[in-house]
C-alpha cells in the first residue's frame, strides 16, 4: 500500500494558542489519573491514606507488586493471554477469508454477507448476552475458556472485516489479473498476493481484536465461574473485595493488567492508531 501523503488539517502556520491551551488542559485531565495510578503502586497503604493520592511516595516500595504477583494474578494473566491469542487467531483467519471473498467473489451473496457484517457493527454484546448464555450452556461450554473465546471473537469480526475489505480493495486489479493469467487458484492468490499485500490491515486487525479480547469483561463475568478459568478483568473486579481498603494494592493490579498491552502498544502503535483512524471515513 502506498504511504499516506502528508496531508495536514490546518492550513494556517501561525500557532493556534487557544487550541494549544485547550489540549494542555485535556492533557492534565487525561494525565492526572494516570499519574495517581502509577504513583500509588509504589506507595504503602498507610502512606497513601495519610498523604493522599497526589503525593509522591516517601519511601517507594515494591511490596504492592510482590503482593499482587503472589496472588492468583499470574494464572489470570495466563488465561487472558491464551484467550487473547486464540481470539486473535480466529478473528484473523475468518476476517481474511471473508474480506477476500467480499472483495473478489462475484455475485450477490458476497455483498449480502458484507451487509450482515456492517449491520453487525452495532450489535451491542450486552443486548445479546442472554441468548449467548443459553447457546453456551446448551453447547455445554459454560465455565470454559472457549465460552469466552467464541462470542468475543464473533464480536470482533465486523470491524475486522470492514478494515480488511478497505485494505484489500486497494490492491491493484492488474495484480489479480496477472495471477489469474498464470492460472492461479483462489488459495494461491490469497496466500501469495492478498495476504502479503494486506499485511498492515491484518496486523491492525490482530492488534485490535487482541485489545478487545484482553479488555473484555461481560462475557467472562457471565460465562465463567471457577477461579481456574478466571480472566484478568474479572480478577480485577474480585480484587475490589479482596484488597478492600488497600487502594495501592488494587491499583497495582490495575497497572499490571495494563502493562502487557502497553508493551504491545509500544511495538504496534502505528498499526493500532492507523486502524482506529481508518474507522471514521472521510
Amino acid at each position, binding site marked *: 500500500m502506498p504511504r*499516506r501523503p502528508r496531508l495536514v*488539517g*490546518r*492550513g*494556517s502556520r501561525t500557532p*493556534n494558542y487557544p487550541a494549544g491551551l*485547550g*489540549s494542555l488542559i485535556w*492533557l492534565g485531565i487525561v*494525565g492526572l*489519573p*494516570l499519574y495517581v495510578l502509577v504513583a*500509588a503502586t509504589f506507595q504503602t497503604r498507610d502512606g497513601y491514606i495519610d498523604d*493522599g*493520592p497526589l503525593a509522591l511516595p516517601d519511601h517507594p516500595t515494591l511490596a504492592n507488586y510482590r503482593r499482587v504477583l503472589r496472588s492468583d494474578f499470574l494464572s489470570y494473566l495466563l488465561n487472558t493471554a491464551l484467550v487473547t491469542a486464540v481470539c486473535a487467531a480466529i478473528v484473523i483467519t475468518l476476517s481474511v477469508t*471473508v474480506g*477476500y*471473498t467480499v472483495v473478489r467473489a*462475484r*455475485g450477490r451473496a*458476497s455483498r449480502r454477507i458484507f451487509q450482515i457484517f*456492517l449491520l*453487525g457493527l*452495532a*450489535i*451491542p*454484546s450486552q*443486548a*445479546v*448476552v*442472554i441468548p*449467548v448464555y443459553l*447457546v453456551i450452556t446448551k453447547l455445554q461450554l459454560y465455565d470454559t475458556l472457549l465460552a469466552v473465546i*467464541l462470542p468475543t471473537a464473533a464480536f470482533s469480526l465486523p470491524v475486522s472485516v*470492514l478494515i480488511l*475489505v*478497505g485494505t484489500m480493495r486497494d490492491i491493484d486489479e*492488474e495484480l489479480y*489479473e496477472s495471477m489469474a493469467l498464470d492460472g492461479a*487458484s*483462489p488459495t494461491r492468490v490469497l496466500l501469495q498476493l492478498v495476504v502479503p499485500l494486506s499485511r498492515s490491515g491484518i496486523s491492525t486487525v490482530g492488534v485490535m481484536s487482541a*485489545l478487545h479480547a484482553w*479488555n473484555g*469483561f461481560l462475557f467472562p463475568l*457471565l460465562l465463567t465461574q471457577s477461579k481456574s478459568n478466571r480472566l484478568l478483568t474479572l480478577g*480485577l*473486579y474480585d480484587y*475490589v473485595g479482596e484488597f478492600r481498603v488497600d487502594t495501592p494494592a488494587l*491499583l497495582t493490579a*490495575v497497572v499490571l*493488567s*495494563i502493562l502487557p498491552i*502497553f508493551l504491545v502498544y509500544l511495538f504496534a502503535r502505528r498499526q493500532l492508531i492507523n486502524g*482506529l*483512524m*481508518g*474507522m*471514521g*471515513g*472521510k
Partner: protein
Amino acid sequence: MADAAAPREPRRSVGRPGDRPGGDRRGDGRSVIGRPGVGRPGVVWALPGALFFVFFAVAPMVLVGALAFTDWDGIGTPSWTGMSNWSRLWDDPETHQAIWLSLVLTVLTWVFQTPLALLLGVWAAGRQRNRAVLSAIFFLPLLGSSVALALVWKSLLDPNFGLIADIGPALGFADGDLLGSSKGAFGAILFVTAWQFIPLHTLIYQGGARAVPRSLYDAAAIDGAGTVRQFFSITLPQLRNTIVTSSVIMVVGALTFFDTVLILTKGGPGTDTTIVPYLMYKNGFQAFDLGYASAVATILVVVATTVSLLLVRLTGFAAMRSTREGM
C-alpha cells in the same frame, strides 16, 4: 506499480445486482482472464466467517426477542408466557426510569464528547512534533479495560481516601461523597466514560482531518480566511461522514455502558444510575429472571439496530467505498 499509460480501471464494487456467479464480464472489454472463476474465490470462502458470526451474534439478536416472551430462570427450559414480560415492563417504574436515564446519558454523552473530540482531533491532525507526543498520551486510556479505568476512578472518587475528599467541597459535595448523591453519581459516569472514550473519537477525527486535501486550506488562506473561518467552512463540512461514524459509535456505546456503572455506582444510589444494560444484568443475572431481562435487552437491540441502519445509510458504507482511499 500500475503502468501510467494504461487507463486505470474505475474501482468496482463487487457483485453489482445482476451479476451472475461466474457469469459473463458484462462486455466491459477487460476479459483478460481465460476461464471465469480462475483466481476468484467462491462465496463458500466466506461461509465459515459468516456462519460463525451469525451463530454467535446475529442469531442471538433474534433469539433475545423470542426469549422476551418466556419465563426462564437460567437453569431449566424457557417456558412460553406470552406478553406477561411486556406488560410488566410497561408498568415497571424502574424500567421507565432506566430508559429515561439511558436516553439522557446518551444525549449528554454526545453533547459532551463530540465537540471536544472534534476539536482535539482536528488540532492533533497538525504536524508539529509536540502534537505527536501529546496525542500519544491522549491515546493511553484506550489501552485499559473499562474495569481497570473505572477502578482507578473509583479510588479517586473515594470519599475517604480519594482526590474527591480534597476537591469535593469546591464542587459542592461537602463530604466528598460524590458517588453517594444522585446527580454526582450520574455526572461521574458521564465524566469517566468521556475520559475513557474521547481519545478514541479524537483519533477518528484526527484520521478524518488528515484526509482533508491541503489545497482547500491553501485556497482559503489565499482568499484571506482565518483559522476559525477555515474550520467552519472547510473542516466541518469535509468531516461530515466522520462525524456521523463517530456519533454512531458514541451513541451505541452510551447505550451500553455497563462495566463502568457496575464498578462506580452499582446502579445507585437507589436506582438513580440504573441504565438499561445494568437493569438487564440485575434482572437477568442477579434475580435470575432472564425472560424479563430479555425484554429489557430487546429494547437495546431495537435501538442499536436502528442506529446501525442509519450508519449504513448515512455514511455510504453500503456503497462499499474504501474507508482509506486517498489516505
